[in-house]
């Protein structure tokens, strides 16, 4: 199986929740949707755990800016979530209009990031933002697309998407070889394919547990995003996406 000649992306799902840093993910989603001429669906996630815990008698919130404590209730949290989603929706609408892309919104009640995969439906890409507390502005423009390649069809689709992004956005590609065993089309061949199509590509070998070995790899160059095949989370530990969310500084894009 060879990489797709071109990326066939019809819909991009952007997962947004209050716990994550959504700005990068939002920009990545707009950029991808514009480059790939896909529809963008904003998915607002209301954390059920949060809503339930807000009703506890001792429920309180520690404000991130000041460390001050205030009591909370479910109503308060619902209002806060609504306010936040309105703000994000407005921002997303504005950016989508500028980029001339179609954009719709949905709200889901969810608890786990992994269950989002069941929400993808027809969407080819699912974008999950990171949740690291980033208080320091990155000094370099993130211009590298990381691609986790395991030889699967989704990985091939990811190659095509990376190629499109690299050629349109002057970005480099780092191909992370996670192939195991014999595969018909190796990561090296995928890299050669990218090179032939005019993309600057480097290859790195993934060794060990992804949640431990991926973060250091992504620190080498300023990462714009990490493309991951859709079945990857199911092959790893159950909370791999959460761990990656906590450890990475860039959105994770799950490719079908």
């Amino acid at each position, binding site marked *: 199986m060879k990489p797709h000649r071109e990326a066939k992306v019809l819909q991009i799902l952007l997962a947004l929740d209050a716990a994550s840093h959504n700005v990068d993910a939002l920009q990545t989603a707009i950029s991808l949707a514009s480059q790939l001429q896909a529809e963008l669906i904003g998915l607002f996630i209301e*954390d059920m755990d949060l809503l*339930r815990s807000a009703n*506890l008698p001792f429920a309180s*919130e*520690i404000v*991130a800016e000041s460390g001050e404590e205030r009591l909370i209730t479910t109503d308060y949290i619902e209002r806060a979530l609504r306010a936040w989603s309105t703000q994000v929706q407005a921002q997303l609408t504005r950016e989508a209009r500028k980029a001339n892309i179609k954009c719709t919104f949905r709200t889901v009640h969810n608890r786990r990031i992994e269950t989002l995969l069941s929400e993808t439906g027809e969407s080819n890409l699912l974008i999950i933002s990171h949740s690291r507390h980033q*208080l320091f502005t990155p000094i370099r423009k993130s211009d590298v697309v990381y691609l986790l390649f395991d030889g699967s069809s989704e990985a091939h689709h990811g190659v095509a998407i990376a190629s499109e992004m690299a050629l349109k956005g002057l970005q480099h590609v780092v191909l992370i070889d996670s192939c195991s065993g014999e595969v018909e089309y190796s990561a090296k061949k995928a890299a050669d394919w990218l090179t032939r199509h005019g993309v600057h590509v480097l290859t790195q070998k993934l060794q060990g547990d992804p949640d431990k070995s991926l973060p250091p790899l992504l620190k080498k160059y300023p990462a714009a995003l990490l493309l991951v095949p859709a079945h990857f989370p199911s092959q790893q530990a159950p909370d791999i996406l959460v761990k990656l969310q906590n450890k990475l500084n860039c959105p994770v894009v799950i490719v079908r």
Partner: protein
Amino acid sequence: MSINPLEAHELYHACNPEDLAFATTAELEDLTDTIGQDRALEAIDFGVGIKHDGYNLFVLGSTGIGKHFIVTNELQKRAQQSPVPSDWCYVNNFSEYHKPKALELPAGMGKALRDDMAQLVDDLQNAIPASFRNDEYRTRVQEINEEFDERQQSAFDKLNEEAKSRGIAILRTPTGYTLAPLRDDETISPEEFESLPQEEQEKIELAIRELRDKLRDTIRQIPTWQKEYRQKIKQLEQEVSELTVDLLLKPLLEKYKTQENVVNYIGEVKVDVVKNVDEFRSSEEEEPAALLGIKTKKAKSPEYSPYHVNVLVDNSETKGAPVIYEDNPTYLNLVGRIEHLSQFGTLLTDFTLIKPGALHKANGGYLVLDVRKVLMRGFAWEGLKRALSSHEIRIESLEQMLSLVSTITLEPEPIPINVKLVLTGDRMLYYLLNEYDHEFARLFKVAADFSEDFDRSTDNTRLYARLIASLQRREKIRDFDAGGVARVIEQCARRAEDGEKLSLHMGNLVDLLHESDYWAGQDDSKVVSAHHVQNAVDKQIYRRDQIRSRIQESIQRGIRMIDSTGEQIAQVNGLTVMQLGEYSFGAPSRITATARLGEGEVIDIEREVDLGGPIHSKAVMILSAYLADHYARNCPLSLSATVVFEQSYGMIEGDSASIAELCALLSAISSVPIKQNLAVTGSINQLGHVQAIGGVNEKIEGFFDVCDTRGLTGEQGVIIPRANIKHLMLRYDVVDAARQGKFHIYPVETVEQALELLTGLAAGEPDEEGNYPADSLNGIVQTRLDELNELRLEFAAKAKGETIIETTS
């Protein structure tokens, strides 16, 4: 005694073209030296050479004598032997922006430093951003980022781990964090919590309280981490920028290592660049300030950069010391100015807008100024004196100096001054300044007094011819033949009012050459000859002598009453000179006198009505003294007399008519008539000696013109002081008439000689008892005065009621 008239050759000191020994001025070499000004040149040499304070020069002499040209020439000769002075620059004062610093540099180094600094800024603008883009810097920043990132993350991770171990989850809210108990990886609902045993509930609440406190402590540490992060980044930026700046400054420090002031300045530049490194890192233009919603760029001078070098004085091209002439010596043009840019009604300035004045440009050399222009420009004189007295140039606006404004403006560091100031002006100004300005004598100790004329010796005449040749070539006009040169020389003697002198008035000489050349051109002549020069003289007079013509016309028409034949008692033809600008002319003026019984006063009617100046009044008093001394030594002068200039309605000044007044008075006393075919001019002293007067040529010509127009009788002429013979340079027609015996000039030394000519009577010598011969003029005067004395005694006695017993001898 008989007085013979002067010979024709005595009336005009001619210049013989054959004595000049050339055909045209083309054969003559240029005259490179200045002639006739030995005194002034020596003074200039002294004033320039002496280096002590206060030995500035004042060059005095009449306008047009060539002071400025000669002085500048002499200064330039000396300046070439002098060392080239320093360059002066203004640079930014990084600690006090409103007090720019002055830098003194060797000549030519100012521009070099300016260019080097401009290049440095350019290099910094490239190198600094590049140094912050390179991998080493980025890696180090990344390391710092990761260090703090990890620190923060591990604090939260640690808290998360502890929470998890105690069965608590840390959840994110839109604005912060909350803690919730977990059961089977899910948060407990309120109902489930209520169903838990009390002990369990308390345990959960305790865990949540403790974890909440730790979370709060962790969050409150973040600002401290942020500050520490910023400090580390700043330190890194300082290291990187210092490294880059040092590399670029090293060649400059090496180049200017002998200039301590420049080295210090470069050190300050380094500190400022490192402090403001963000200005160099910004790749986009500075966001303009918005005012009333309108974005505009900040107004700065086109050359503004805090590291710009404002070269105030550049002596890179100067050879020797500078010689500067400031033609418009206003205060600002002399001491310099601080310019401003206007932005929305406010005035902004910076050190790049400091402009030099003439004092800056002349520093180390010479500054030449016209003193009249300086005095006429407000505050210029005071500013100049202040600079000379304080030995520094302080640039200060007039508004500041007069305390008219109190807004902040620049206070540039004063620059020490070492300049020789040369003022040029006429004598009156020099003496007035000396008299009324107490600082003047202290600051201008050297007077270079220019002569108005010099001796007309043979050698000097030849030098003068070369001068004419030099000027003619300089002015690019035709060559003069020997006759033309001779005529010019004669005219210059006439200008000097002395046949034995030559005028050194260069302005007039050049004008004469120009105009002679013009008339030669009108004549299609290749050279300028004597008749062209004469034509130039005649035409010049004609252009100016309308008033003279009107006066002559009024005399001819009998409106102004002047007799030129016959005799009259108590009436004399006096002679006056009128000065109208550059032109002066003479005209006869009737002087009359009356004499009657009185008490010895001679009344000057001009003085009585304030039309007589002090010198004229003095002259009348002198003739009163003469009368008393000659005729009233042993008895009172019982006379009351008046003297007046008839038909004169303006100010009369001078004593050149005193002999005429005395003759009129004696005629009035003696009733002896005065010949009207003669005019008389001369000043007398108390002893009756006739003294020289001015304008003798114009006066003679004035009477001649009256007589000539009416027709010369052969009897007419003018009586002049003998001392004025050397001044005679009369017109050709007057000389011709004298040669033909139709007009006569009589030189006299005493009043008696003049009286004899005017009356035809001998004046008479006194005997041992002081009595004059009865038939002499003095005798007749004496007799009449005695009669008046007796009359006075009679009237006095009658007034007292006494009778006078007549005595017979």
